[in-house]
């Protein structure tokens, strides 16, 4: 069953904060090795959708399903909660504001979860962390504290931290929005490399270039709904709706 069902699926997910309806019955599936890019104006519910998939928000309606097993529902029962605990660390997330732990060195940030959650022996966790740091080209910063790093470096460490748990899917929440343009490039380069290596990714982003050239599918959201979804660059070449055309217009001169 797991081979045919999507890796992770938002199944008719709605989210309300008080009377504010942020998501309305959103259905989105991510298959293995997919790089799904979610674009849309701010306030369109992209981040909330991502947070639902990351199990940081409970849907008001619908469910989140991982490899055929429901892991998040409105007022989840024991079974769903147990399933969520099971797959919790298989869903990695990279935040807009990095959220590195400032009281720990780069290396400690990377080995904390493998050691505590996976009960991995320290030397093994360190070995994995070091190879990941080499991968994001920050090995020489292993003993530095986050405050000493640039924003781009912090975000690369955050990506390495997420990878240290070897997640099946990696969620990116506007991972480059808080960065200066020249720092964005180094983070996007790492993301592109991950995509090339076949990492399954769901990327909420304002980087149209990344969505167009790296994404296997682009999803356009507006006012809490998925308005359009198209494979690869098709969305950019031939948007089907007026709303999408107007949205893309803003990036025309970029």
């Amino acid at each position: 069953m797991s081979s045919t069902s999507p890796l992770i699926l938002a199944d008719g997910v709605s989210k309300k904060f008080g009377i504010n309806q942020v998501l309305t019955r959103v259905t989105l599936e991510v298959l293995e090795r997919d790089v799904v890019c979610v674009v849309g104006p701010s306030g369109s519910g992209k981040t909330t959708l991502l947070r639902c998939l990351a199990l940081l928000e409970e849907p008001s309606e619908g469910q989140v399903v991982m490899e055929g097993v429901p892991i998040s529902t409105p007022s989840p029962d024991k079974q769903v909660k147990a399933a969520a605990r099971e797959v919790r660390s298989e869903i990695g997330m990279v935040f807009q504001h990095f959220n590195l732990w400032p009281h720990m060195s780069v290396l400690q940030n990377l080995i904390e979860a493998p050691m505590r959650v996976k009960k991995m022996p320290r030397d093994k966790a360190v070995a994995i962390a070091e190879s990941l740091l080499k991968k994001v080209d920050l090995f020489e910063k292993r003993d530095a504290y986050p405050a000493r790093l640039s924003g781009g470096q912090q975000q690369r460490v955050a990506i390495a931290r997420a990878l240290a748990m070897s997640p099946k899917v990696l969620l990116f929440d506007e991972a480059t929005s808080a960065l200066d343009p020249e720092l964005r490039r180094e983070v996007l380069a790492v993301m592109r490399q991950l995509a090339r290596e076949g990492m399954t990714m769901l990327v909420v982003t304002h980087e149209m270039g990344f969505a167009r050239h790296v994404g296997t599918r682009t999803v356009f959201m507006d006012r809490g709904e998925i308005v359009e979804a198209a494979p690869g660059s098709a969305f950019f070449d031939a948007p089907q709706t007026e709303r999408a055309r107007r949205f893309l217009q803003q990036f025309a001169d970029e």
Partner: protein
Amino acid sequence: MFKYQFRWDTVWGSFDFLMGGLQMTLIISAITLVLAMVGGLIIALLDMSRFRPLRWIGISIGEVVRNTPILVQLLWVYYVLPIVFGVRIEALVALIIGLALYQAAFISEVYRSGIQSVPKGHREAAQVLGLTPFQSFNRIVLPQAIRMTLPPLASNFVQLIKFSSLGAVISVSEITRRGMELSATNFRPLETFTFIAVVYFFICWPLAMAIRFWERRLQAR
């Protein structure tokens, strides 16, 4: 200037007596600080509890204690508690209970702001990586919160040293009380209380300066 024959020898003559009092002052302050840190944690946890009645208790204790004078509280613990519970409390115990409760009410706020100073995103990062809420609090929130609370806690120690002089009113034999007793026998309040003020100052001032230095270093990190 006014004609006054200083007789500092009356103070030096009782130096050991006064220093014994100072020792008492510091012991009281240290014990009280430890109790207040524990009490403050209890009040802070009550304040942040998910259960409304517990929260209500925590908030009530904090508000009552913060909004009544410390001297009245001490007199209340010393004179009223024995009436209510029918047990005699030693003055020293009453002083420590009263001071600890008073400081705990303030320290609970220090803890609370320390915990709330840790950005929510740090906990979310822990959650997403699979850490349990307990691990997240223990490993991510608490170490950061403690760093934030250490300087204010040290400042509380300075405050305690000064507030413990109120023990004199209920006859606890700390340095101020001993000063009162000394000046009643040597009839030299000027020398006696000046000396005592200087002693307090040269203990509290360096401590306060060290804390300020420490705080600045923490902020620089």
